[in-house]
């Protein structure tokens, strides 16, 4: 019953998230690509920031969502919450990959290297690997109930471990060589602040929208499978 109400709620409110995200991103892209001016030090390349930073922020935000959903699942054991976890993990992987790719493209003209073992990049790469492990674990599980619990556990361990990884990599880097490359203090002018804020908020809301859509998708897929196979549980649509 909880599942039905939850999915109904998602269905009713998802469009407002979608519309808000579309408007914010449209205005954000317009200001980012057309009206904002180039940075003094970085030139036009700074425009990559308007898509890179929102992606990275959303990747972290979505992993946090995964963590919260995992705790929620361990607490309530609702199958639909597990679907939300699965959805959040997939989206988190997507945004992490996007953040890594745009970051790499930004790094080439500014640092003259596609990849640098910078603490932030390294912990992001490890986040990426963890998420791949998480999604692989999901595909290899036979017992759905056990699997949901295990995935929740993995997400929680990962969430606790990531700050530790970031900290240790930072310490390791600072020991070997001073950070030769860092995002040089871009004093963010208000001119840049507008597209950056619009895009950050827009992509975050877009993530919320995508999460709602994807949770429904995974829930419906499970439901269809159950319906094709045997008896449905009470109150499933």
């Amino acid at each position, binding site marked *: 019953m909880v599942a039905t109400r939850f999915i109904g709620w998602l269905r009713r409110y998802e469009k407002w998230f979608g519309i808000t995200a579309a408007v914010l991103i449209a205005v954000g892209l317009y200001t980012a690509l057309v009206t904002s001016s180039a940075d003094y030090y970085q030139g036009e390349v700074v425009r990559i920031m308007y898509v890179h930073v929102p992606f990275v922020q959303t990747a972290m935000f979505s992993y946090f969502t995964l963590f919260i959903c995992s705790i929620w699942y361990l607490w309530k054991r609702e199958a639909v919450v597990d679907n939300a976890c699965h959805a959040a993990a997939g989206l988190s992987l997507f945004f992490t990959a996007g953040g890594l790719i745009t970051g790499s493209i930004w790094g080439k003209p500014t640092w003259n290297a596609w990849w640098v073992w910078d603490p932030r990049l390294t912990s992001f790469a*490890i986040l990426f*690997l963890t998420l791949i*492990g998480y999604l692989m*674990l999901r595909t*290899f599980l036979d017992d759905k109930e056990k*699997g949901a*619990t*295990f995935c929740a556990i993995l997400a929680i361990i990962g969430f606790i471990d990531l700050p*530790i990884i970031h900290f240790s990599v930072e*310490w390791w880097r600072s020991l070997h060589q001073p950070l030769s490359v860092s995002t040089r203090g871009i004093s963010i002018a208000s001119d840049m602040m507008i597209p950056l804020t619009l895009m950050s908020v827009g992509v975050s809301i877009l993530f919320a929208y995508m999460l709602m859509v994807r949770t429904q998708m995974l829930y419906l897929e499970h439901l269809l499978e159950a319906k094709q196979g045997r008896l449905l549980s009470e109150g499933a649509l």
Partner: protein
Amino acid sequence: MHFFSVVRWIAWKDLLSEYRNRENISSMFFFALNVILIFSFSFSLDPDTLKEIMPGIIWVAFGFTAIIGLGKSFLIEVNNDCMEYFQCLPVPKGAIYLGKFLGNLLFMLTVEVVLFPLFVLFFNLEILDQFLPLLLISTVATIGLSALGTLFSALTVQIRAREVMFPILLLPLSVPIFIGAVEATRGALSGDPFSMYRHWIELLGVFDVIFVVVSFWIFEFILDY
């Protein structure tokens, strides 16, 4: 204390089984031996380079050993559904975790103690005056590795493709332990004074505490899903 008697029983059972069949320890040991062999062929044995890469070689070998050994540590529990028996036990599940963890730690340390002289032998290391620090480093790093490895072994042993999933889950999350262990070993092997790399050992100690406590707490959910 019932709690500690459970820990003792689990560890006793693991050690006795291992003593009888020697499956885990021998596969860990010979695997690591092969890793050493491959490494000695893969790198030029120029002493300066060797000093630079030696800590990495040692910990890559130990890491692989952990994957081979720890990954299988819960196999005997699922073979005859013993996990189910544990689930039904009226004891805190953390006690079972601690028992398995102690057993695994002992296996890993045994293998490492045998391997270290072989490293010294094959790569002409001079570690006699650094013996105690190295022992400390291996112990502290192995505690962290076993803590995480035991947890992930319990998690992956119940799924398909467990041989693949275990390293995929374990390695990214144990990066801090490898960083700390390699850095501390580098310090010890290059003959630095202890205070120069003490902070790495302290860091490893903090990681150990975090990993053991978190695993201990979360193991409840693995057994009692």
